[in-house]
């Protein structure tokens, strides 16, 4: 009997649905252990300064205080963390590099006592010149943030350019082919422009928090992270512990979107637990979370050359990222911006240069699509501009240039699986192209991003003596639905009902290794390692059945929930109990590494395809999104409703960045580090109509031809909105977010801000 798809491909209710609607689902923030104490962080009130003195005397006398930790207490640990460069101090050491940086941790018997005492810690600074703007930071006379560079510790498998080395350059990346100069010289039209993508706060609703417990078995940390194994690596290094003595446990995660990739507050909680010998819980507020991680803002200078027929001849991009005070993940964000800015178009000659720049601002890291929305905004708007100037329909111009299925997007990388011309056709139909003269206009954007991260994954499946199964994975459930999708895959492979399958995830003390939960990889990569584990378990079960029934293994076949021995069905339970005599279990293992189907990178090309219809209130500049269309080009939807959920969520998050969201620095500090001033989308921002299309061509390397989702919906939406507004107003925006104020100004000026001297040559 073979495994005809029946559990996969169906919108089976989420396995965590009931726990989540009843309040039973526990998040890290909900956990407590007996005897636990609480940490409150003292934060820098300067953007750049030497720390002359930290006076903790009066705070120490405050009721309930257990201990106060500063950078001076980190002598016996490795005081830095970072997965690419070891430059992020657990607490500022001698110098502070941004306003809001952790300087001390006050540990007390209650949260109130800790918070109260933290306000009594006095820090004496000697101010240094600071720089918060990336272009300023590149100037010769700019203050240098890192005169000495941190040690490079990057994992193999990080596709992340090279370290910068000099000045304030955090990292560099480039991509080149063809002869750009002769390309531009031969072009009939060359357009230029400078595009700005804002600094964003991901606002995962569960703020950063961690509970660290140090005991005879080593360290256990319960935390709201996406990548428990990356956190384990940081903590093991900091405390000089073997991996086996560091257990990172991730319960339900209240939103990730990339913002909970890599270590955040875990190192501080871990060191505090080690130094006090007590369980320490550190919970940050939203304002503190904003001062922990934000996304890289980008300035993209773009130049594109076309023939009169609208064919691309050459493109050149210069990308500058404002990456904040420490390296974190900006090198990967920059590399991804480089790989995606020119879009999935045949580009005969290309030159891309990226500089990620240190500034005295909150450290930047991943956020949904990391790098792709920034680059795509520039690249797609130029496709639109070219279409208009050449008098070619924008969909037609894109079609003439799109990379077809099976063609390379980047030489030497995996060829594109998707059929973008078909996707574009669907999207174009959905947005309907109303006449801008009547007050509504459409816009769309496309992107293909190199997703899946590094393919390194392991999975275990335990078939218990009663025939039920537990699958152990290192993938984190952060809302995307991995537990449900993986349970569907295991149930499908073992042909068991969903009720008999449980997923155990993200516990480095129990479960198997997973590189990350990011870059939309889980269904594709973990799905395949779990499939392999199920097949391994099946193989073992056939062998056991053959032994028990004394037949050749060839006469045993797989069957739903069991095996067929010479045509007779025997349940998993019967086989296992028969072989062991009593109890027992079968453990299947699966592993994915960079070979076979996964030899080529990227693991898959994640398609971003979004279109909108907008209208604008000409008195206020307020933009209304009347329709939002997305395409989930996912190969095969293991759970279609959850793919829609990913696309809708990513699209609305992208809409927030397009219309409202931006962290703003004024002087040395943020002007809007809270949810009143930093406005995220709410119910009333929901577009009047949503059209979520699903495209299934079974062209991915994931199980049943699937490939990832989750970021695509948001990658292209900034470009789609700006394109629609340009069509509607006759002025071309080049900066997000398109707040009412900005749109109103565009209307008043009646011209494109930062207009470059571009002309038909």
């Amino acid at each position, binding site marked *: 009997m073979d495994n005809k798809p029946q559990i996969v491909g169906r919108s089976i209710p989420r396995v965590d649905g*009931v726990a989540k*609607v009843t309040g039973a689902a526990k998040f890290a923030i909900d956990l407590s252990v007996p005897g636990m104490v609480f940490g409150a962080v003292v934060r820098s009130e300067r953007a750049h300064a030497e720390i002359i003195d930290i006076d903790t005397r009066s705070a120490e006398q405050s009721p309930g205080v257990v201990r106060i930790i500063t950078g001076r207490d980190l002598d016996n640990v490795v005081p830095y963390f970072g997965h690419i460069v070891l430059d992020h101090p657990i607490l500022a050491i001698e110098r502070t590099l941004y306003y809001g940086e952790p300087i001390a941790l006050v540990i007390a018997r209650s949260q109130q006592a800790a918070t109260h005492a933290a306000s009594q810690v006095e820090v004496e600074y000697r101010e240094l010149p600071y720089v918060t703007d990336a272009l300023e930071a590149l100037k010769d006379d700019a203050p240098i943030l890192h005169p000495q560079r941190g040690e490079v510790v990057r994992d193999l498998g990080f596709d992340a350019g090279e370290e910068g080395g000099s000045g304030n350059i955090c990292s560099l990346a480039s991509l080149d082919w063809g002869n750009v100069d002769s390309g531009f010289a031969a072009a009939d039209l060359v357009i230029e422009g400078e595009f700005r993508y804002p600094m964003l706060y991901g606002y*995962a*609703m569960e703020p950063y928090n961690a509970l660290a417990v140090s005991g005879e078995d080593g360290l256990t940390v319960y935390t709201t992270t996406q990548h428990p194994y990356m956190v384990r690596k940081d903590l093991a290094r900091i405390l000089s512990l073997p991996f086996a003595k560091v257990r990172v446990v991730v319960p339900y995660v209240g*939103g990730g979107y990339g913002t909970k990739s890599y270590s955040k507050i875990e190192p501080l909680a871990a060191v505090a637990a080690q130094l006090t010998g007590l369980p320490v819980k550190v919970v940050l*507020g*939203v304002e503190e979370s904003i001062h922990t991680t934000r996304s890289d803002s980008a300035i993209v200078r773009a130049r594109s050359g076309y023939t009169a027929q609208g064919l691309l001849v050459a493109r050149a991009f210069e990308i500058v990222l404002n990456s904040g005070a420490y390296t974190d993940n900006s090198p990967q964000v920059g590399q991804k911006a480089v790989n995606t800015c020119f879009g999935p178009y045949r580009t005969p000659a290309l030159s891309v240069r990226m500089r990620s720049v240190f500034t005295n601002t909150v450290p930047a890291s991943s956020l949904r699509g990391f790098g792709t929305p920034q680059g795509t905004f520039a690249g797609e708007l130029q496709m639109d501009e070219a279409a208009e100037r050449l008098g070619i329909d924008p969909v037609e111009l894109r079609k003439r240039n799109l990379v077809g299925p099976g063609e390379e997007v980047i030489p030497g990388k995996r060829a594109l699986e998707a059929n973008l011309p078909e996707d574009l056709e669907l999207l174009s139909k959905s947005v309907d192209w109303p006449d801008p003269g009547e007050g509504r206009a459409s816009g769309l954007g496309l992107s293909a991003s190199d997703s899946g991260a590094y393919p390194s994954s392991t999975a275990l499946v335990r078939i218990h003596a009663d025939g039920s199964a537990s699958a152990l994975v290192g993938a984190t459930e952060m809302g995307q639905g991995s537990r449900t999708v993986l349970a569907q895959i295991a149930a499908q492979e073992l042909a068991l009902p969903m009720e008999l399958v449980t997923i155990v995830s993200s516990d480095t003390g129990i479960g198997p290794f997973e590189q990350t939960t990011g870059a939309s990889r889980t269904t594709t990569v973990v799905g395949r390692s779990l499939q392999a584990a199920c097949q391994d378990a099946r193989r073992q079960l056939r062998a056991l059945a053959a032994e028990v029934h004394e037949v050749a293994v060839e006469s045993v076949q797989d069957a739903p929930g069991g095996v067929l021995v010479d045509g007779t069905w025997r349940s998993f339970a019967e086989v296992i109990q028969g072989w062991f005599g009593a109890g027992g279990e079968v453990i299947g293992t699966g592993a994915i590494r960079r070979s076979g189907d996964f030899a080529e990178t990227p693991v898959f090309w994640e398609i971003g395809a979004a279109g909108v219809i907008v209208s604008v209130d000409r008195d206020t500049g307020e933009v209304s999104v009347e329709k939002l269309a997305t395409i989930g080009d996912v190969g095969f939807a293991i759970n279609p409703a959850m793919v829609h959920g990913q696309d809708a969520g990513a699209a609305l998050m992208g809409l927030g960045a397009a219309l409202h969201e931006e962290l703003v620095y004024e002087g040395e500090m943020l002007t809007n580090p809270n949810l009143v001033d930093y406005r995220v989308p709410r*119910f009333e921002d*929901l577009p009047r109509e*949503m059209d979520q299309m699903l495209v299934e061509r079974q062209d991915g390397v994931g199980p049943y031809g699937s490939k990832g989702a989750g970021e695509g919906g948001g990658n292209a939406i900034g470009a789609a909105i700006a394109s629609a507004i340009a069509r509607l107003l006759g002025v071309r925006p080049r900066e997000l977010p398109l707040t009412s104020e900005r749109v109103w100004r565009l209307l008043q000026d009646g011209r494109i801000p930062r207009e470059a001297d571009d002309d038909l040559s």
Partner: protein
Amino acid sequence: MSARKISFVLNRRPQETEIDDSVLLLDFLRDRGLTGAKPSCEMEVCGSCTILIDGLPFSACTTLAVEVEGRTVETIEGVARNGELHPIQEAFVERFAMQCGFCTPGMVLTAKALLESNPDPSRDDILHWMEGNICRCTGYESIVEAILSAAAKAGTGDG
């Protein structure tokens, strides 16, 4: 700081307790293991800490525990009865109206209060009523659908 004795009803059970004047209702509930109400913005913007007081949604992050004296408080833990989901909870599960689930307790309670005061809300009524609850995951559409479907099911009796 001074303590006060208060009596109120919590998830259908009368309570009498001594409580400090300055303790927030959110901390009071969470310290008793009722962790369904979640802290997030802590400034009455996001709705993740929503509880119902006398049937109406409030932010527990900006309510003092002593303010519930003599009133009826319902948290997410009190919505399902004897293991039976409330229709609005069922609709959330059926319509995939949650992802990470962090906002979900607040969403369910606010939606429950809506349907109790307006059993047949329009789409715009829903958008307006739910405006104080943020969800960063779902994009809202599935939540709107869940509320509409719960209302439709409840309304099938009177056509």
